[in-house]
Every structure is written in C-alpha cells, then in structure tokens.
C-alpha cells in the first residue's frame, strides 16, 4: 500500500480543486421562483461544496505530524500480516505481491486493466466466454499452482452462475457470441 500513499498536502490540494469545480457546477443548477420552491435545488450542493473545500484546505494545511493517522498503523494491522510484510521486504528477491509483477503499481494496474477488459468484453463476447477467460487469466496471473483446478473452477462457477441467475432467477446475463445457441 506504501506505493499508493500521497501526502495529505497533495490530497488536500486535489480535493480543494475538485471542490471548486463542484461549486462551479452547483452555481449552474437552475433556480426556481422563491414562492414555489423556498429551498433551491442548488442550496444543498453549495453547502456540500463549501464543506468539502473547507475540509480539503484543513487537510492540506495541518501539521505534518498529523498527516500519518493511526489508520496507517491500523492498516498494517488489518493487513493481518505484519510478519508477512516484514518477510517480503527482507527477502529481497522474493515476491512482494501475489501476482507476476513484483512492483505494486504494475500489479494494481494489471488487475484494474484486466477487470476493465472483462467489463468491456462482457456484452460483445458474452458472460460465459468472458468470465471463463477472466477467471483463467486471473488465476494464471496470480500464479495458481494448478491451472487445471483453476480451469475446472472457472468453467464450473461460470456455468453455475449462468444456470442459477440466468435460468432460475431470470437475471439476463449477456449471451454475446453464444446468442445463436439460444443461451
């Protein structure tokens, strides 16, 4: 998680810029005659934008000592693996992540990119082929010990989901290229 930490100042400034943009958008919400609408639809967003701006500025200007909240410590605890973390940093050449890249940013980028590809292909390719491919690719990326087990689980879970949701509960999962088969 260390690779994804930013200073409170940077986060505060980004949020402040977002709050200003939010306030500008709030000003553009149309007004109504006061007798029909005593509370304009822009009032609440304006208050929220102002609050966000105030909090963002507070975050940016607060002393550096306050920038490392107990949460960061708690985070490490909640990871549940203080020994694991220590081990991974000590080990030098050993894996620091679950996947095939040892660099955390690349690992997250690949996972987000893979999920984006899955979402993008879900409708054109169909639920069954896209899900099986995603599960297989995901298991391979995370260095599964036995690819045949992963393949069995991928096919089994996908078909069970299609049957359970599609056939029993009537949830229309995209058929994609399998549409001609009547799925």
């Amino acid at each position: 998680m260390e690779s994804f930490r930013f200073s409170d100042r940077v986060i505060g400034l980004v949020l402040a810029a977002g709050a200003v943009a939010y306030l500008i958008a709030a000003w553009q919400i149309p007004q109504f005659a006061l007798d029909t609408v005593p509370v304009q639809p822009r009032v609440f967003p304006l208050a929220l934008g102002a609050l966000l701006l105030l909090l963002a500025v507070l975050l940016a200007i607060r002393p550096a000592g306050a920038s490392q909240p107990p949460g960061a410590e708690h985070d490490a605890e909640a990871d549940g693996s203080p020994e694991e973390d220590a081990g991974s940093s000590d080990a030098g050449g050993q894996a620091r992540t679950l996947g095939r890249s040892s660099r955390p940013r690349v690992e997250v980028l690949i996972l987000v990119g893979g999920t984006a590809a899955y979402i993008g292909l879900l409708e054109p390719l169909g639920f069954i082929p896209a899900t099986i491919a995603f599960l297989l690719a995901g298991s391979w990326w995370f260095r599964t010990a036995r690819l045949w087990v992963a393949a069995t689980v991928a096919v089994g879970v996908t078909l069970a989901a299609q049957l359970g949701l599609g056939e029993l509960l009537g949830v229309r999962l995209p058929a994609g290229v399998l549409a001609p088969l009547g799925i």
Partner: protein
Amino acid sequence: MDALQDLAFGFTVVFEPFNLLLVASGVLAGTIIGMLPGLGPIAAIALLIPTTFGMDPSSALILLAGVYYGAVFGGSTSSILLNAPGIAGTVATSFDGYPMARSGRAGAALAIAAIASFIGGTIALIGLALVAPALASVAVAFGPAEYFALMVLGLTAVTSLSDTGLVKGLLAGTFGVMVSIIGIDLQTGTLRYTFGMPELFEGVDFLIVALGVFALAEVLRLALQPQNESQEAIGSLRLSRRELRDMAPATGRGSLVGFFSGILPGAGATIGSFLGYGLEKRVAKDADTFGKGNTKGIAAPESANNAAAVGSFVPLLTLGVPGSGTTAVLLGALLVLGIQPGPLMFADRPEVFWGVIASMYIGNIVLLMLNLPLIPLLARILRTPRPLLLPLIIVFCVIGVYGLRFNTFDLWLLLLFGVLGFLMRANGFPAAPLILGLILGAIMEESMRQALQISGGAWSVFLEQPISATLLALAAVSLLAPPLVARWRQRSRASVG
C-alpha cells in the same frame, strides 16, 4: 407482556419452513463469506442482496440478518486462525485468539468465540425486544427538522469515531453525501451532476459503491500481499470447567458493553469489541496474560461484537438510522425492498420487525449448532487459494452490479469506486462514512428541505425545536469532543513530563 406477544407473533413468521431455511442458509452463507479474507458482513450482505429481489420483505430481511450474524462470527474465525481479521469488529478477537491458536488450541479458541457470540447475541436480543418499542414511541415525535438533525448526528458519530482521523472521516462522509444527490432532484425535477449521462439520472446505486469500496478495493489490497501458506492445527474444541468459569463474567460484561455501543449510531461492533476487551483487561487480575492467549480476551470482544451487531438494529429498525456501516447497507437493502424503517414500521409492517427479531434468536441458535461441529470443516475454506479467490470475488461483484440494471455503465462505476476505495484505504480514509453519507445524504437533504418548507425558509427551525437542537448539539459534541480530549490529554501528559 406486549413485547412477549409480539415476539410470539414474530416466531410464527420465522417458523414458516421457507423462512427457517433462509435463517439457516443465511447464517451458513454469512459464516463462510465472513471467513474469507477481506469479505466482511458489508460485502456478504451486498453480495447476497441481488438474491433477495422478488422475495417477501420479511423473508429477505430474515436472510440478510442471518448473513450479518454469520459474517460477524466468520470474521472471528479468520482472526483466530490466521490473525487476519476480515472485519474491524474482530480485530480485538485476534489479540488473544491468534496466540491461543498458535499454541495449538485453535479449536478451543473458536469454541470460546462461538459460545461467547451466542451469549452476547442472546442478551442483546432480549435488550432489543425490550428497548426498541420504547425508542420507537419516542421517535414518533420526530418531524423533518428532527430527522435532519438525527441524520447529521448519525453521520458525525460514525465519522468522529473512525480511527483514521476526523478530517479524513468527514471528507469521506461529505463525498458520500455528494454521490447521494447525483441524479434527478425529486422536488423540482432538476438534473444535478449527471453530466448529460442518462445512466446517472436515477442516481448511483449504493450496491455499486458498497461493492466497489469494500469488496473490489479489498481484492486490490490482497493482490499486493504474497500468499500466506502457514496453516495451524485446529486442535480440540473442548474447554475446561475453569475456562468456562473464567469466560462467564467476561461474556456478560462484554455483552452489555457491546449492546449499548451498538445502539449508539456510529459506535457499532468495532468500538464495542474494543471497549469490551479494554474493560476486561482493566478489571482482570491476570491482566499481564492478555495478548498471550487469555480466554477472557476472546470471550469479551466476541460477546461484545455480536451484541453490538444486534444493538445496531435498534436505531435501524426504530429510527431508520443505521448504527454502523453494515446496517447502512442493510438500510439500503430495505429501501430497495420497499420498506422504510422507522417508527411507523411497528404499525405498518409488524411481521417484518418482529420476524427479524425472532429470526435473530433462531439464527443465534443455528449459529452455535452449525459452528461448533463445523469448525474444522469450515476452516478449510480459509485454504481457498487466493489466485482463485480474487478473480472469483471480482466476478461475483460484476454479476451483482450487472443484475441491477443490466448495463455496463454501472460496471465502470464499480471499477471506479473500487480504485477509489483502494486509494482511500491506502491513504487512511475510512470507507464507512462514505457509505453512510451515500445512504443518509438523500434523506438528509429531503428532511432539510421539508423542514425549511414548513418554516417558510427560516433556518432557525433546526434550533427552535428542542429535539432537533439537542441532536445537533450532540452532533457538535461528538465531532469536537475526541480532538479536544486528545489535545487535553497531550497537554496534561506534557505538563506531567
């Protein structure tokens, strides 16, 4: 006697075979999901909400309450066996549970957790049946101004108790409220923050945000940790008489602390379990053995977190205000099912209210019956290899969100909130206020505008009504007290030093 009669009515609802099946399967599913690293009650409930579509509301809530219960206990199992608390509410359990498991007594530690959870849940359920109707009658006096103040209190209480700093908690809560007002303004029909995208006209569904910031963000976090292969022996589940005698008072104290912290909006299972553990350590004669496998160190937080889980249903069912992040998700589920929790629920939907309470009694028994004999078997799920588990969680999230409106736009939002949740976690921003803000935001704005409409636009309405003024004062105190107390302590320590 009324409460007893109503409870008997609730049991008739639960004892319908279908509902009994739902209680059992909900508890089992919750336990299994709660045991999976990173999937706590919020994710468990969010994942199972789509299965309740089309169900009778009381049956749906019975299922989800069972899931909640089971997931809280399931989280304790991974805390004890792997020192990996799936949820914040079971962190305190790991302090003594994990050392006990490492000393080859994992079975006994799990048995203590199961028994303490059962007792904590039962004591809290009695409290729920007695306290909830009284609270509901008070709540009838609530108008829009009072509701607005109550929502503010709920949000500030959760935010102020978050362990990652007040400013970050408030930022997360404010962002949640901002997300909640996206879409068509129901009073004027104005589009707000939809950026010309028709998919946003109806707003952002809470399930998308909940699955994104909790489940998907957790997958990203777990992907950064190498697999932990160490597995300890589970051992015998038997407890000695001395151990049982030791844990009895600890369980009683933990249950009471947990129940009352659960009732307070914002306190919830996490604070309850820490308070329970802290109290027990303070009163124990063998305080030096805490953290080394003391049975009381497991019994107190476990009874407290289950009692708090039950206690958090009090504000949810009687006032419509969730006491925790999990009950915020449950509130969303109720709204999806067409139920508005609150004082009128007693009159309008007694079968739902008392059915849930009765189902929790049954669920509590089922939890004990299932967990004691199944502990060795269930623990095998912890061995699900993460290379398989992580892609599977993503697929479950995608299915759940796609089933909402059958469009991929929601899936892109899911991914966006997943990345956001991950970055929030990496930078010490709590996710629970975001979810609370999202759930309470729209109701908060509606109450505020209604109150102002009644008062002719006079903002003083919030301070003139005694209940509303008191609640807003409490909200201010809950926000300002923690930093002021911390500063005061710092100063007094400095002056002593």
